[in-house]
Every structure is written in structure tokens, then in C-alpha cells.
């Protein structure tokens, strides 16, 4: 969401920028005054961004046919094709584009419809700094995923598959008039995909002003039961994992593993007396740390199954194999999605660097580090999803941070947590 999202130092960036073509943004609004205002306020960015402006959805689609764009920023309420319809078209024809809404509408219906297709939602009036930061992040995160094909895959994702059992529980709970938002949030927090989607909607301005929402419960309280009901039942922002057998087993294991990692990372972060923000990011980042695997297994199932099989056979960590095949690991793919969806930066970073916490920060203990430890400790235990899909503890990092002697305590906390879970 802001400058911190800058992942690479300036030198590296220059190299990458040279590889990537110019960044192009298309603005769509039926009010010429708005377009003129945007053009002027972003005039200072003219050397970095190439900007185009369209007054209707139809005209925008014509422009997209003529040349390539990276980001589209559209109004919702327009004569003819509205913003939601335009974004649906864009999603189908140009899946790799980043789709952002900039709207002053307060019509709930229209907002709900855009919840499935827009990556982020900005409300008018939106100040220049926020607009610029949002566009900046959207354009910079491309550097996380160099491959356009992979960007298409992630960008096309409008929902992540949920386990049928959790989804059924959610639908059932929606029919219960007695249920509280908090309880609803607790159900959603049992599922990686639903958690990610809910946090996207709460952290972007889909249903109000910007705010930092770190947990599904908070998001559920903030959005309200009616909105969650409408989102679940009519717009289908949550989807159910359809396949059964080995794939379902994989997803089930992934979900359980993710929940444990989130909780253990939270325990470790608390033990290290980190700030509340980092503790929250450890919990939710931990829950979401393998969201990239969910994206890959749902969207490229054959390739991904092969990766898992090869990793198992050759005894390498699966993310090594992911990098060989896709040019990026599930950590980066997951982080890219979360950045795209406008989740808090700490959370995205925690996911991005959960294999190599040193890349996140060499000097402080971050949520990425807590998740890294929790992940590694979980993998040590029998019954981890892929015994071969190891995640070794980054000892060099711990040495540099002088935290090596903390490891036994973390292990003890982890074992205590696991035992508590088994007793319960």
C-alpha cells in the first residue's frame, strides 16, 4: 500500500525496470472533469507512467485492444457499460492487469458486484497521495513476479477454494439469526481462502473508508453480517474446492498446517515481546503463508502435482522446485496476490519472506521470522503435509540475530501448543 512495499533496492530495481516495459495505467470515468483532474494531479508521474484516459467502458476496451496496459482504474456508475461490467470483461480478456475501482457510489449492489472482480477499491474523494501509493504498489509488485504468465494466473484469481466442510459451516451459520459477527469471523478464520478474501474486502475501501483490519473477526464485525451474507450467497466471493481425493487431502492438510503455523507464529511473536501489529501479522500471515500453494494447486493443478512429486522424489524443498518451474516460489506468488488485494503490507511481507526472513530484515525480528520458525517447527513434526517438502530453519539468520539459544524455548512452546491441541 505504500513505499514500504518496495521490495528491491534501487540498483536491482533499475535493472528490473529496464527489463520490464513502461508502466501503463488506463483511467475510465464518464466525467471529463475527473479525468482532467487525474491527468493533472498525476502529471508529475508522467516520466514513470504512461497514462491514458477513457470516458466510457466501451472506449476503454477499444484502447485495451490497441495497446497493452498494466493497471486499469475505473469509475463504477457510468452510462452504458458500468465499472463492474468493464472489469469483468478486463478480467476475461486481460487477466494479468491490476483492476482498481475509483468510485463515489454508495450503492451497495454495485459495490458487491465489484467485490468479485476488482482487486482494490478506492472511494472518491481520494487524495492524490493515496491514489499514487496504490498505483505505485500495484506497479511495483510486478517485480515480485517477473513472468507475465504467472501474473495472469494470480491476477485472474477472484476467490480461493475453501474446504467444503468450512464453507458448509459458514452457509449454515448464515441461516442462524442468533450468530454474532465475531462467531462468523471465527468460522472464516478456519479457512485460508476465505480469510484472505475477507481481509481484502475489509482493508480496501469496498464498504467504507480505508482502515487497517488485521483479523477475520475484526473484518466480520466491520463489514457486518448482512454484507457477509450477501457476499457469500449472491456474489460468490468464496468458492468451494470441487475436487476430491488426493487434491482434497492436500488442501485439507494445507489448511490444518496453516492454522497451526499461524497460532505458533503468534505464540513465538508474543514470547519475543513483539508489537501487537507484528503479533497480529504473525497470526494471520502464518495462516496465509501458503496461500500461493492454494493458488497454484487450484489454477495449475497438473504442473503443481508434478512439482510436489518431483520435490518428494529428489528430496528438495518444494519451493526450490517451484522456482525452477515457475520462476517464483509459492511465497512470492501468495504475497503477490495479497499485495494485489491490498492486504496490510506487514502481512504480505511476512508471507513473501517466510522462507528467508533475512531478506525482510537483517536487524529486527519480524512476523516473517516468526512464521518461518513456526513453519519449520511444524515441518519437524510427523504428519506434516509433505515430509519431503522441508523447510529448514535458517540458522545463519538466527546466528546473526543472536537468537539461536531461543530455539529450544520456541520448540517447547510449539510442543506445548501441539499437545494442548491433541488433548482438546
Amino acid at each position, binding site marked *: 500500500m505504500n513505499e514500504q512495499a518496495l521490495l528491491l533496492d534501487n540498483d536491482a530495481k533499475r535493472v528490473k525496470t529496464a527489463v520490464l516495459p513502461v508502466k501503463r495505467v488506463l483511467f475510465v470515468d464518464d466525467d471529463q472533469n475527473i479525468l482532467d483532474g487525474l491527468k493533472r494531479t498525476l502529471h508529475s508521474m508522467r516520466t514513470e507512467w504512461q497514462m491514458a484516459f477513457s470516458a466510457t467502458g466501451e472506449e476503454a476496451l477499444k484502447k485495451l485492444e490497441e495497446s497493452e496496459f498494466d493497471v486499469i482504474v475505473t469509475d463504477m456508475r457510468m452510462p452504458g457499460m458500468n465499472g463492474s461490467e468493464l472489469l469483468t470483461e478486463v478480467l476475461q480478456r486481460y487477466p494479468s492487469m491490476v483492476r482498481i475501482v475509483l468510485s463515489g457510489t454508495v450503492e451497495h449492489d454495485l459495490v458487491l458486484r465489484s467485490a468479485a472482480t476488482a482487486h482494490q477499491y478506492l472511494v*472518491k474523494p481520494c487524495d492524490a497521495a493515496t491514489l499514487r501509493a496504490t498505483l505505485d504498489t500495484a506497479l511495483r509488485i510486478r517485480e515480485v513476479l517477473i513472468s507475465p504468465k504467472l501474473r495472469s494466473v494470480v491476477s485472474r484469481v477472484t476467490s480461493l477454494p475453501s474446504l467444503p466442510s468450512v464453507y458448509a459451516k459458514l452457509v449454515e451459520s448464515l441461516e442462524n439469526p442468533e450468530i454474532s459477527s465475531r462467531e462468523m469471523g471465527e468460522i472464516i478464520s478456519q479457512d485460508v481462502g476465505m480469510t484472505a478474501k475477507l481481509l481484502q474486502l475489509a482493508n480496501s475501501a469496498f464498504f467504507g473508508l480505508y482502515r487497517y483490519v488485521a483479523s477475520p473477526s475484526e473484518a466480520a464485525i466491520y463489514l457486518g453480517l448482512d454484507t457477509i451474507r450477501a457476499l457469500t450467497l449472491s456474489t460468490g466471493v468464496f468458492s468451494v474446492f470441487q475436487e476430491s481425493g488426493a487434491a482434497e487431502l492436500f488442501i485439507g492438510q494445507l489448511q490444518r498446517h496453516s492454522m497451526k503455523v499461524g497460532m505458533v507464529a503468534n505464540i513465538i511473536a508474543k514470547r519475543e515481546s513483539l508489537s501487537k501489529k507484528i503479533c497480529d501479522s504473525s497470526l494471520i500471515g502464518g495462516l496465509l503463508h501458503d496461500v500461493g500453494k492454494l493458488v497454484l494447486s487450484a489454477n495449475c493443478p497438473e504442473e503443481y502435482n508434478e512439482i510436489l512429486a518431483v520435490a518428494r522424489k529428489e528430496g528438495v524443498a518444494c519451493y526450490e522446485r517451484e522456482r525452477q518451474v515457475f520462476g517464483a516460489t509459492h511465497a512470492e506468488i501468495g504475497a503477490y496476490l495479497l499485495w494485489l488485494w491490498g492486504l496490510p503490507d506487514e502481512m504480505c511481507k511476512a508471507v513473501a519472506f517466510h522462507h528467508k526472513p533475512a531478506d525482510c530484515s537483517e536487524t529486527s525480528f519480524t512476523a516473517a521470522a516468526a512464521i518461518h520458525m513456526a513453519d519449520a517447527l511444524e515441518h519437524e513434526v510427523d504428519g506434516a503435509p509433505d515430509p519431503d517438502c522441508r523447510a529448514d530453519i535458517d540458522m545463519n539468520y538466527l546466528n546473526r540475530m543472536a537468537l539461536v539459544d531461543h530455539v529450544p524455548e520456541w520448540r517447547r512452546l510449539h510442543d506445548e501448543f501441539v499437545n494442548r491441541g491433541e488433548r482438546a
Partner: protein
Amino acid sequence: MKILVADDDPVFQMLLTQMLTEWGYDVLVAIDGNEAWKQVRSQGGPRLAIVDWVMPGLDGLEVCRKVRAERKNDYVYILLMTAKNKSSDLLTVMEAGADDYVTKPFNPEELRLRLRAGCRVLESEERYRVIAQTASDGIVTADETGRIQFANDAAAAIFGFSDGELLWRDFESLAPGYLECFARSGGSANSPEAPIELVGKHKTGREMPLEISLSECVQGPQNHRLTLVVRDVTERKRTERQVAQSQRLESIGQLAAGIAHEINTPIQYVGDNIHFLSESFKGLSALLAAYRELECPAKNAPEGPGLRDRTARLAEEVDIEYLQAEIPKAIQQSLDGVRRVAEIVGAMKELSHPGTTAKCAVDLNHLIGNTILVSKHAWKLVAEVTTDFDSELPTLQCIAGDLSQVILNLIVNAADAIADTVKDKGGIKGRVVISTRRCGDWAEIRVSDNGPGIPESIQPRIFDPFFTTKDVGKGTGQGLAIAHAIITQKHQGTIHLETQKDVGATFVIRLPIEGLENGPAESQKQIMVTHERTSFIAR
């Protein structure tokens, strides 16, 4: 059934008691008139009585007169027994209030049949009494002067009286002006289906809204009787107010959402432009400083060319040509935006400000213009709204807030109707035309759309409360019902529909130009009232 035998002759008492018991009656005996009177008056006392004319104390005639004067709700059927059989005597008996008579010596079979006739009368009376008492509406009958002859429990409860207290009161004291009100409502006394509403008085002096239906029965040449069915509509009035209020909130809510959007848009570009102006100013300041330096030759002589280059580079960086072209436009558009916001806020303020129920002079054209402006969000994507105003139209006495709510409801309905067809017509916007015109003593407002029209099948129902063709959650079906109430009840105007399939629909509102006091509606009605009064108030 209980029967009273009042006779001072013990033999006769015995004879009758035996006979009546055999016929299935439950016999009570009184040995004189006073005793008979006491028994008849007592709670749950006999309703059927055989009374001898000649008795010690009160005689039979006096008992009859007392019973009839008592005006109790429960009717007592009196059969007088007498040895006198001259026709003048019989007249005396009937005049005193007896229902029937038997002469002594009597034929037992005749007595049996006459009693049976009495029972039939009492049964019928009882049946209607029970119906009246059970009714939840107040039921009152009054004589031709309006004095109450009968009132059921519900009526007593409505006015706060206890059982029987209402008898012989003038109904006028409970519902002042009810007869005039009936006359004015245009209903006649013989059409009980047109109830009136008026303010009634509770025993405590509290006022309450009542709904009263009236029917007049003519019983014989001199006996007019009024039957009044009275209902306390305090609760219903409250509900109606709430419904009206919620519709108002609904339209305000729709408006607010639209207005938020209409205001957000200019604020977005005004903000962007000011941001741009501020950045531009920074660039221009730097450039200005550089030019100033250039103008000081003494200071800059040694490094002149370098400074010149730097200044040129700065001018390029600042993009001076772009700024020169864009700054005036940015300022102009910002001013436009601010004016737009001010217009919307101003219109909104004017519409919501009067907020009271008081009438004041209203410029109809201005009010409609404002309403179009604030409802822009509802129509701008689907229709062009044009106006055709009669600039000569005088001001009207209106409740501005209510009237603009009516116009708003009609505009929103027209836009909704058009919206359904815009897609079919390949995205071509529809048309809404709002015109004002003077027609004699009336001001006429026409709201026309070129939507699909309103099908004949639903035309009779469009002004009904809760009737809606919109999807659940889209409309409460109150818009036109409220519009109708506001126009006809609060402004004494009329509203009707002209429509043709696939051509469109036009709502025509007519409002009296002089307002309520001496407007055309009133003068027309006056004639009717006078007419009604002559026919009806024949007290």
C-alpha cells in the same frame, strides 16, 4: 327463562306459577307493584313479566311507565293482565308501555302463545344486544336529537365512561360537529360505508381521532334513529404517520446516497486540481526565482550562460507550457466544481428546511427545479430531464417539503420505468418532461416519461399503499400512495395518471391556486355541503 308474576291475589299467583312452571319457565313472584319494580330492576332480574293492573303500591301501569323510563339496555317485555276490556282501557295499557295484554279471565292457551311471542321478541333483542356488546367498535344509537339511547361497552370504553353513563347524553358532546362533518364529507346519512374522521372528546377532556360511520333509520313517521359506529383510530394514525415518515426517510435515504455521489465527484476533481495547482506553484516559484536571478546582471555576469542553461532546463522540467495551458483550466474546473457542490447543498437545504407542516408561499417552478437537481443521481444515467415551465405561474400555498417529496417520487418512478427500457433501446436515454401550467384556478404539474407505460391491469392499484412492481427491497410501495395523500388531503388537489402502452406515462397534479381557505376546491364543495345539509340535518 325467568318470568315474573306480579299479582296481589294468592290464588291467582298459585295458578299462574303452576301453569308457567309446567311450561318450563322459572317463576318469580311479586305480591305488589313495588316488589315487582324491585325485581325487574335487580341485576340479572327477569326480562319477561306478567303484571296485574290493579295492585297495592304501584299499580301495573306505573310499573310499565317506570320500566320504560329507566332506559336500561336490557329490554323488559311486559304483559299486562287486566279484568278491564274496554278498548279505551287497552289503549291506556299500551300507552303506558306494556308490550301486550291479556284480559281476565284468561284462556291458558292464549297466554301460552302470547308469552311465546314475547320470548321471540326477547330472543331477537338478545341476539342483537350480544352482537353489539361483543363488537370491538363502539356502537351507539341515538334518537333524532342525538341523545344516546344505547351504547355498547366498547363505546363506553372509547369515551372513558362506565356502563350506562353514556345513556341520554348528547352525542354531539362526545364528537363535536359530527353531523356537519358528515354533511361536508359528501356522504349522506344513508350511506354508512363512507366513514368520517373527526376529533372526539374523552371523559377526561383528552382529544382523540375517531372514525365514525353513521346510518339513519327511519322508524315510523317521527322516530329517526341514528346508528353510529365509532372507532378510536389513535393507533392507526400513529402507524400511518410512521409509514409516511419511513417513506420520507426512504426517499431521503435514496437522495442522500445520490447526493453523496454527486458531491463526491466534484470534490474528487477539485481536490486533484488543487493538488496540481500546489505542485505547479512549487515549480513556478522555483522558476520565478531563477528568472529573478537572471534579471540581476551585476550578480550574474560571471556565470550568466550557466545560469541561463539551468533556467532553461528548469523551465523544461517544470513543463511551463503545460502549466500555462492547464492552470487556467484547473482553476476554472475547480470553481465549477465548487459551484456544483454549492448548488446541490443549497437545493437540499431549501427542500429540507421548511420541514414543518405549515403551508407557505411556494414558487412551484423553483421547487421542481431544485428537486430535479437533487435527484440527478437517480436519473442521469437513464434519462434527460427537461422542463417546460409557465413563468407566469403565481405562488401557491403549499407544504414545500411534502410537495417536493411528491415530485421526487414521480421523478424516481419515471427514471426507474425508463431504466428498464434503456437497455432494449440500445442504450439511448429516455426522456422525462416536467411542465407547469395554469388552468383557470388550478396550477397543473405534468410529469411525463417515455417509458413503457403503466399496464391497464394495475392502473387502479397504483395509489394503493404497499402496491409496488419493484423488486423486493427496491421499493416499499409507498411512493404513490403518499403522493396521493399529500396532494389530495394536504393540498386539496388532484392527481391522476394518463398512460399509453410503449408511449409513456404522465402523472398530472392539480393544485388550487388560492390555497385552502378560499380555493376553488372549497367553493365547489361548499355548494355540495349546503345541499347535503338541507337534506340531512332534519332534526
